[in-house]
């Protein structure tokens, strides 16, 4: 019989629609305003008692608690309004003290039976829920320079151990090379052999300049890439740790390209604190004080952080850095002064021990390093222009006599204040950045703007959708109704797919949905126009339906595939808002093909299929006669 789907096909479509319905459903439950409590350290447990204390503090303030629950590592308290939420955070923070972090959160209120099948609402982008977005750029030049300097110290140390005499060694970061100079050719040959045996990251070249015999070690392209990759990965890990220390619910930390990192912190409004902690590039270097007779080329002079007048000459070689720190805690010394207790990792402990066991009685310095961006006014082409400048500040925080060989645990004194000690400990704990980073993009969206965007989006989707439905019914009558049912199901499927993929919905994403609705109509229009044409040509209704669907298929397929290709390019090339738009467009094209070809056909078949019909309700004069 013509135009009749077999039972199994109807069932398949029905199952797809039911699954779509279930997974789209969670979006109908609005999120609850909530606060989230986590331990400041991973060892701090959030338990029943903590939660009870928090709830009691809220009740004392007259804030209504909707519900509270304990999760694996944190606790969640649901509240009734955003005002309550804002008031609740400081209240709970105060009640629990600094051992716990309290963050604002939006908690999904998906019913348990939906959660059981893994359904959940779409995630909302920052532009819809408020928060901050940062784009950080890793300073790769500095990363390379630091790596070269570390290698240069290591090579020189080994040369000394092998008793190969060298005159000097400079790092030329611009050319990515280390230049070692020797008095005679013999030493250079020895050094050449040693470096060749132990290091495979260098391209080596021998040069002679006056009476100096130079050995030029250049980093290979591959090694440069490795170093940059390592710097980015290391920074990514560090930033993740720091974001966790900030206690933000559902943060996003992601790499972008070869040298950038995206950080999104939903719900955060205080950008200043976030920036200070994320961007802090403080690091430590441990160096020995230079001997009196050390040549000037081997030493560097630094002033003290608390007293710029006081200076000390330090060896250029770095014993270890903050990167080797495994743990750091702020504490007090016997005089009540703040100090930081440091535990080095095994490599760091080893380095420390080796450097200090022969240096008892000498003094070791702890150098504090900070990278900042400063803007200053400069005259460019006779006009004052603001120029970005990257500044490095290094200052000694402590210079103490080595009493005995140091191992993996020791302490640093000489810090100004408790907050400074605490922040240093935090930074050392979260890991140092392998290379300094700079903020190149920042976007803050207030929560009120987020709500406004949601309202505007919902409004325009509803209105646009309503008008399209109206248009279709007026123009195509009965078939218009069928198209409308399939369009509605299309919208449902689109939302279900986005929820299943946990794609993030953004404002441009909503625009993508609106556009998809507009374009999804196209498949129906193409088919219906074709059916009308066949009817005009005098074809019997049942045949016309069949011909309409099968003839229109080729056009629909070609048109959608090409649009899909463009959407994929958009996704691959785009960033931020463009990506959000591309995701909804891609999914929308796929669902609209399914609903336009399969779902609407199935409905048409159910309505008209398998019986003799005289006319179709498809609008247009001829068809209705």
């Amino acid at each position, binding site marked *: 019989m013509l135009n009749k789907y077999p039972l199994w096909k109807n069932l398949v479509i029905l199952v797809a629609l039911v699954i779509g319905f279930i997974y789209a459903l969670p979006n109908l439950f609005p999120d609850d305003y909530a606060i989230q409590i986590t331990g400041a350290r991973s060892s701090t447990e959030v338990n029943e008692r903590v939660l009870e204390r928090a709830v009691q503090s809220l009740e004392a303030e007259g804030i209504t608690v909707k519900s509270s629950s304990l999760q694996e590592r944190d606790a969640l308290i649901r509240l009734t309004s955003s005002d309550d939420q804002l008031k609740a955070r400081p209240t709970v923070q105060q009640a629990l003290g600094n051992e716990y972090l309290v963050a604002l959160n939006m908690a999904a209120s998906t019913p348990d039976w939906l959660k059981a099948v893994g359904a959940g609402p779409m995630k909302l982008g920052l532009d819809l829920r408020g928060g901050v977005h940062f784009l950080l750029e890793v300073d790769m030049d500095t990363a390379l320079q630091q790596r070269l300097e570390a290698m240069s110290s290591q090579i020189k140390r080994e040369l000394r151990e092998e008793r190969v005499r060298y005159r000097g060694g400079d790092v030329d970061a611009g050319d990515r090379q280390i230049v070692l100079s020797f008095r005679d050719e013999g030493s250079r040959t020895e050094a050449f052999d040693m470096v060749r045996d132990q290091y495979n990251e260098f391209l080596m070249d021998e040069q002679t300049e006056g009476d100096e015999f130079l050995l030029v070690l250049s980093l290979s392209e591959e090694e440069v890439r490795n170093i940059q990759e390592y710097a980015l990965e290391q920074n990514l890990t560090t930033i993740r740790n720091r974001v966790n220390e900030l206690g933000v619910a559902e943060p996003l930390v992601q790499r972008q390209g070869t040298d950038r990192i995206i950080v999104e912190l939903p719900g955060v409004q205080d950008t200043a604190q976030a920036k200070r902690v994320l961007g802090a590039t403080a690091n430590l270097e441990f160096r020995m004080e230079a001997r009196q007779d050390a040549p000037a080329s081997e030493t560097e002079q630094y002033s003290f952080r608390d007293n710029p007048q006081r200076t000390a000459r330090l060896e250029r070689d770095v014993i270890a850095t903050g990167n080797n720190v495994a743990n750091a805690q702020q504490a007090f010394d016997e005089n009540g002064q703040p100090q930081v207790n440091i535990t080095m990792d095994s490599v760091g402990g080893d380095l420390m021990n080796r450097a200090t066991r022969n240096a008892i009685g000498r003094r070791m310095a702890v150098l504090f390093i900070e990278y900042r961006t400063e803007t200053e006014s400069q005259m460019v082409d006779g006009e004052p222009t603001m120029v970005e400048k990257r500044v490095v500040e290094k200052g000694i925080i402590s210079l103490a006599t080595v009493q005995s060989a140091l191992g993996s645990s020791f302490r640093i004194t000489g810090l100004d204040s408790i907050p400074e000690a605490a922040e240093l400990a935090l930074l050392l704990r979260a890991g140092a950045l392998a290379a300094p980073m700079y903020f190149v993009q920042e976007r803050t969206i207030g929560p009120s703007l987020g709500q406004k965007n949601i309202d505007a989006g919902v409004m325009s989707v509803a209105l646009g959708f309503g008008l399209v439905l109206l248009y279709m019914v007026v123009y195509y009558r009965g078939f218009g109704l069928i198209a409308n049912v399939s369009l509605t199901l299309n919208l449902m499927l689109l939302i279900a797919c986005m929820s299943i993929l946990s794609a993030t919905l953004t404002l441009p994403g909503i625009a993508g949905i609106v556009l998809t609705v507009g374009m999804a109509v196209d498949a129906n229009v193409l088919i219906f126009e074709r059916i009308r044409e066949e009817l005009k040509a005098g074809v019997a209704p049942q045949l016309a339906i069949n011909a309409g669907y099968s003839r229109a298929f080729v056009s629909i397929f070609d048109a959608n595939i090409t649009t899909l290709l463009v959407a994929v*390019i958009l996704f691959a090339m785009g960033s931020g808002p463009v990506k959000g738009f591309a995701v909804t467009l891609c999914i929308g094209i796929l669902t609209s093909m399914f609903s336009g070809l399969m779902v609407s056909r199935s409905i048409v078949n159910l309505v008209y299929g398998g019986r003799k019909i005289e006319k179709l309700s498809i609008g247009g004069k001829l068809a209705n006669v």
Partner: protein
Amino acid sequence: MSELEKKPFDFMGFRKAASVLSIALVIASIALLAVRGLNLGMDFTGGTSVEFEYTEAPSLDNIRGQLDEAGFDNFVVQNFGSDTTILIRLAEAGNDELAVEVADALQKGGAEFELISSEFIGSQVGEQLKEDSGLGLLLALAVVLIYVGMRFQFKFGIASVIPLAHDVIIVLGIFALFQWTFDLTVLAALLAVIGYSLNDTIVVADRIRENFRKMRVGDAWDIINTSIHQTISRTINTSGTTLVVLFALYLFGGEAINNFALALIIGVLVGTYSSIYVSANLLIALGVSREDMALPVKEGAAGQEEDEEPPEWLNRM
């Protein structure tokens, strides 16, 4: 309607006038782009923008005065959406603390307001975006050319890519003419215009191909004319519904996607026109003929019906 049935409307009769119009528009657009240039948004130039919601509508001149006094230069102050919402843009791209400084400066004026959003984009990000975007547009056009060339025929490939370029250039030209802000969302709209206009062009091309195979009489001119006639109500309906939705987006979607909707509205209008006049016109100019459309001879494929059959699995549906 029945009048039209018998004798297709002579769409191609206007082909000369349409050619002149299209060429004139494209040249004018290119000239505008060269002379006035695009008003590039912050996404591309870098800079800082801050949005404030005042409790009472403030005077813009007042705010300008306050900022002047505080030592800022190179800034734009404008209303954004409503008269209590103020958007301030600063060209400076070097300082990521600017938003806070601006808020502090205005706070001294004593008016009550709330900082609702701020954005800072470093100049290096903008530069890179500019390159990527241009590349994205070109890549999209290239992929379309390849796909349509393979799926249809090379002449059709040309006849579908040139209208796309035509549409993109004219939309850009209009943005340059009115100096509307061209930002990332407008770029996304432009790519969507490519998708949409392509959709239109393909549907018409598809019908032309079908008619070349089916119609035994008439030359290319007649066949193209008939094809456009047969698809015109579909073209108008689809454009109509899409435009309806876009107007809803333009009017109610909020300030942030206004330009996005605007670019799409213009793009859909131009795209609809170009799928009829530019694309079909080009097919005639390129001298498309029945031979171009001949199906590759298949074994035993001597049937009368030379339609491109939908795949067999579809018939089972």
